């Protein structure tokens, strides 16, 4: 009997393949988007772990200088006192295509070096000769691909255990490549120490212990991943609306079948179990398809995600995707649990349904009206909760709580709001047909409201995120014009060459602005301090947010400092406040400048002051001021001088174009997810309308019998769908703007450290409205077409079959 009953149940899908496809597609889309986000997040996390655990062996505590570097003799003294330390020398190593993070370690004492190289490919793994010369450089094969040929490159060993954009070598080789003999950047405190040591604080008071601060970077990247996860969850929720619609439809249509099966003696609980089995099967099939889809989406988006992360946070994520078992299991589990949640209502209805009950739309609608009030109250509560959390707490989580509260709250209030609007319409209707249309729309509302909620969320997200990205882009463009004020940026190979170049340029009357900086330890991270040479360029062009009178005069006479917005906001320092750059170096803040695209804290002082307080301030980079028309000629001239071989040059336009490309790439992921979410929402409307279609025939037949043609009915169907979508879009607009404001003024400040002005783009809204309407029109097209082509006999049957 079980088999026969299950066969009867499944035969439904056989006869309604479109419906089955809808259900499977909806679930697969939901699982797919969710899994894609999970895969991206998982990959990024695995990459961070690789970078942090293996590169500077950062799970260990380190010993860092309060300023400058650690002399080799200090390392030896501390080793001789018994402390087991491992020296690391790290610096940027200029290459033609940018620079690499070059890390030198003592191969003998480094805690994890051997783990990193044991997977290196066998052909070029350690050989006796190469080892004896300590002359090998370890690189990820992908980094090597990016390097253009460099004549002075030492022998390379490839290992995929080395993070991208990092070169690792013995400290003897690295100190030569970086031209920093006898210098150490930090010392790793090895986990096992012998008995009877004197405290490091006494032995080396000028050094400070630093436990690996996962803090800042992970806080920054976490916010990005939280964003992605929120998107994934949103898509999943929208996808579940589809499942809900399809399952309800499938059950609605099979009521007759259930009745027959029950009448033939199939017990109610067996019927329920069989239905659950059917759903489980569907969930597994769709979930698997979703995983494939998710993998494809993630693989397509990951290069952009890694570009985003390295562009915004300097975190490196590999561009390739690995399959992780946890991901597979969680994807299927999400699909199964989601299906069960989405079908609970339908299954419960079956369980409770009296054996011979007749389905009716209006009655359901009345029951739904009390539901609407409940949802609206819950929505209000969520909004209140979000607002309260913003008032009580601050920070990223509070921002997200407000965001979630507002979004969900508004979505839950949507049915009630729409029903009010429709009631208003009904009251103002002049004709009988008009009254019927309004009433019919209101009657449909419970069935379609979930889909409309999905549309609302998708639209609001689109408006919010779109406004944020566009505002950011506009601000960024203006900022670049100010910040990249030199016409040409050059980097010399070494200090000798730099000196020759400066002399050569000054003889040609070109203003040379040295770009020199030093990094000092600062609150557990590093503060980059630029030393600038007083020049009108800075006074006129530097992008200031807040500035005191005569600020640049005070900077150039060495009494004051300018700081970037990130530093100002994080440490709450504003013009007039004092800032301790190092324990012994205090200056007054006279200005705050905007500094987008950089997660780190930064300060500007005058060059002589920087040189007095910091050593190791390389003088290799310069900004050149000259008439824009002369730039290309100058580049050619420099290229032709034999003394200047190896100098890298980037002109302003090129740099701007590149920065903008990075910026745009950064938000490709957001854009893609936006569009996908909207697509899923459109799909949700389609399934809802299809569900309603069957239930609506009994309502439509009398109207038809009264003389309204099928064609007219079809058009009405289409208009109705468009009207509901337009109403929803109207409600989505304020919600979207609120979202944009939250992103710009709350989330951005927390996540990136900068606040952005909000610009409004009404044309974008119009575009979105059109997209929403198109989605609604496409969704309504199938039912409308069915209606237009329905055989009159079908409509007549409604009367014949009056149940």
């Amino acid at each position, binding site marked *: 009997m079980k088999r026969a009953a299950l066969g009867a149940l499944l035969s439904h899908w056989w006869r309604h393949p479109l419906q089955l496809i809808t259900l499977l597609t909806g679930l697969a889309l939901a699982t797919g988007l969710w899994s894609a986000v999970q895969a991206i997040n998982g990959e990024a996390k695995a990459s961070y772990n690789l970078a942090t655990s293996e590169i500077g062996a950062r799970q260990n505590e380190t010993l860092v200088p309060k300023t400058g570097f650690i002399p080799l003799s200090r*390392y030896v003294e501390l080793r001789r006192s018994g402390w087991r330390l491992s020296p690391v020398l790290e610096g940027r190593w200029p290459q033609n295509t940018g620079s690499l993070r070059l890390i030198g370690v003592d191969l003998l004492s480094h805690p994890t070096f*051997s783990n990193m*190289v*044991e997977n290196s490919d066998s052909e070029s793994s350690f*050989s006796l000769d190469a080892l*004896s010369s300590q002359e090998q450089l370890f690189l990820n094969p992908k980094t090597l691909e990016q390097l253009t040929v460099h004549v002075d490159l030492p022998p390379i060993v490839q290992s995929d255990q080395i993070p991208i954009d990092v070169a690792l070598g013995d400290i003897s080789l690295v*100190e030569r490549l970086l031209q920093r003999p006898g210098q150490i950047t930090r010392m790793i405190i090895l986990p096992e120490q012998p*008995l*009877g040591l004197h405290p490091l604080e006494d032995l080396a008071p000028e050094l400070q212990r630093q436990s690996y601060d996962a803090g800042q970077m992970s806080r920054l990247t976490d916010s990005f991943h939280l964003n992605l996860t929120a998107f994934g969850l949103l898509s999943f929720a929208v996808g579940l609306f589809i499942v809900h619609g399809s399952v309800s439809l499938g059950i609605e249509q099979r009521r007759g079948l259930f009745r027959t099966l029950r009448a033939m003696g199939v017990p109610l609980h067996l019927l329920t179990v069989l239905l659950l089995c059917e759903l489980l099967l569907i969930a597994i099939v769709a979930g698997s398809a979703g995983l494939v889809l998710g993998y494809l989406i993630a693989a397509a988006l990951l290069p952009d995600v890694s570009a985003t992360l390295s562009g915004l946070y300097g975190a490196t994520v590999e561009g390739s995707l690995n399959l992780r078992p946890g991901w597979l299991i969680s994807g299927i589990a999400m699909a199964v649990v989601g299906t069960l949640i989405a079908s609970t209502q339908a299954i419960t209805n079956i369980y409770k349904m009296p054996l011979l009950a007749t389905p009716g739309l209006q009655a359901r609608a009345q029951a739904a009206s009390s539901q609407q009030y409940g949802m609206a109250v819950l929505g209000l509560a969520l909004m209140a909760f979000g607002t309260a959390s913003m008032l009580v707490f601050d920070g990223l989580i509070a921002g997200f709580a407000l965001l979630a509260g507002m979004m969900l709250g508004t979505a839950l209030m949507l049915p009630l709001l729409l029903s009010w609007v429709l009631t208003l319409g009904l009251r103002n209707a002049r004709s009988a047909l008009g009254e019927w249309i309004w009433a019919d729309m209101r009657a449909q509302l419970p069935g379609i409201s979930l889909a409309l909620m999905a549309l609302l969320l998708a639209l609001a997200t689109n408006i919010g995120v779109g406004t944020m990205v566009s505002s950011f882009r506009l601000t960024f463009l203006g900022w670049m014009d100010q910040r990249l004020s030199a016409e040409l940026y050059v980097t010399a190979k070494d200090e000798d060459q730099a000196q020759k170049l400066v002399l050569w340029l000054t003889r040609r009357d070109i203003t040379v602005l040295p770009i020199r900086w030093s990094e000092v330890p600062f609150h557990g991270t590093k503060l980059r301090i630029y030393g600038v040479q007083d020049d009108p360029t800075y006074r006129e062009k530097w992008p200031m947010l807040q500035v005191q009178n005569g600020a640049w005069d005070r900077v150039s006479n060495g009494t004051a400092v300018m700081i970037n917005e990130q530093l100002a906001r994080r440490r709450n320092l504003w013009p007039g406040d004092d800032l301790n750059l190092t324990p012994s170096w205090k200056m007054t803040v006279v200005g705050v400048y905007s500094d987008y695209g950089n997660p780190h804290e930064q300060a500007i002082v005058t060059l002589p002051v920087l040189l007095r307080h910091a050593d190791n301030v390389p003088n290799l980079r310069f900004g050149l001021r000259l008439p824009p028309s002369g730039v290309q000629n100058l580049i050619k001239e420099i290229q032709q001088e034999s003394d200047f071989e190896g100098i890298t040059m980037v002109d302003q336009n090129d740099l701007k174009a590149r920065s903008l490309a990075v910026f745009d790439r950064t938000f490709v992921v957001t854009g893609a997810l936006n569009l996908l979410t909207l697509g899923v929402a459109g799909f949700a409307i389609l399934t809802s309308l299809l569900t309603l279609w069957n239930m609506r025939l009994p309502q439509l037949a009398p109207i038809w019998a009264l003389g309204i043609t099928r064609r007219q009915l079809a058009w009405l169907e289409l208009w109705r769908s468009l009207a509901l979508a337009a109403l929803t879009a109207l409600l989505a607009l304020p919600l979207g703007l609120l979202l944009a404001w939250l992103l710009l003024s709350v989330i951005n400040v927390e996540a990136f450290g900068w606040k952005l002005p909000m610009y409004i783009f009404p044309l974008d809204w119009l575009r979105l409205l059109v997209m929403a309407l198109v989605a609604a029109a496409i969704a309504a097209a199938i039912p409308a077409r069915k209606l237009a082509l329905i055989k009159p006999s079908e409509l007549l049957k409604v009367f014949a079959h009056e149940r």
Partner: protein
Amino acid sequence: MNAKSFLTAMFLCLPAPASTQGFAGLGTNANGFAIPQQGTFLSFPADHGSHPNFRIEWWYLTANLKGDDDLEYGVQWTLFRTALRPGSEDGWSSPQLWMGHAGLTTPNHQFFAERLARGGIGQAGVTADPFMAWIDNWEMTTVGPTLQQLNLKASGADFAYELDMSTQGQQLVLHGDNGYSVKSAGGQASYYYSQPHYQITGTLSLPHGPVAVVGQGWLDREWSSQPLAEDQSGWDWFSLSFDSGDKLMGFVLRGASADFTSGSWISADGTVTALQPGDFQALALKHSNVSGRSIPTEWKITLPAKELSVVIQAVNKQSWMGTSFPYWEGPVTISGSHTGRGYLEMTGYE
């Protein structure tokens, strides 16, 4: 290649697997390095210092100690030097690498620690006059006339020791032909001398507290560029101090075709007799399971010329040095025709 074998390979610069070229790569040939020459006279104090043109070298001290708790203890302090290429340079580019091993054996526990260091930066090294050998804070320092009075220090995560060692002015023992010690039938050799006459007092720091100890110590100095023949896989090395005042150093180099044995007999009056290959015989009597290997921990030693026939037993059968390249090293007791105490080192057991 795991981290440890990597380090070993790194340290002794041999291609893996090690077994094809003798224990710890000592069987590789002496590319560019100086080779010990018969007839060379060792000169002191200069030869107490390091010989960077030779590939490997060690300063090797073992001590049999008795604690104020009446227990037998053994202490090992070793500084190894190995060169990636001959010569010395200042800074990280130096081709000299250093490795320290410290061991402390109690009847039921073996403590050990290892230190690695690059040459050229001062983290490890040896100076001849005044004599000092060090790696990190492990030190063997002359406090009186060279090598006659030494202070010895080492510490690990769970143990430490500090010992004062002195001789009554006894001469150094030059093994083989005036310090030229042949290591295989093929003629591989090293320079090898010892000071086996130290009296020791000092303190061991153990997890349950300090233990005051007294006893005897034996210092070995050896350097070479290729001390093993290619087919030799390891050695069993004995330094025995008999209650009669006589001492015996003997070793067996285990070869694929034949073993090579040699050694020195040091009479109580200080005269040294170099043993001819084959004079010294060692027969493994009992094996123990140590760190997953079968290792002989009871031996029968015979030296017919001195009417010696003794049984050697490990104080602690688990005297395993689980260092980058692992070996067995620990104190032993002697019974039979002679009685006394000594030290046993066994390498190359896989």
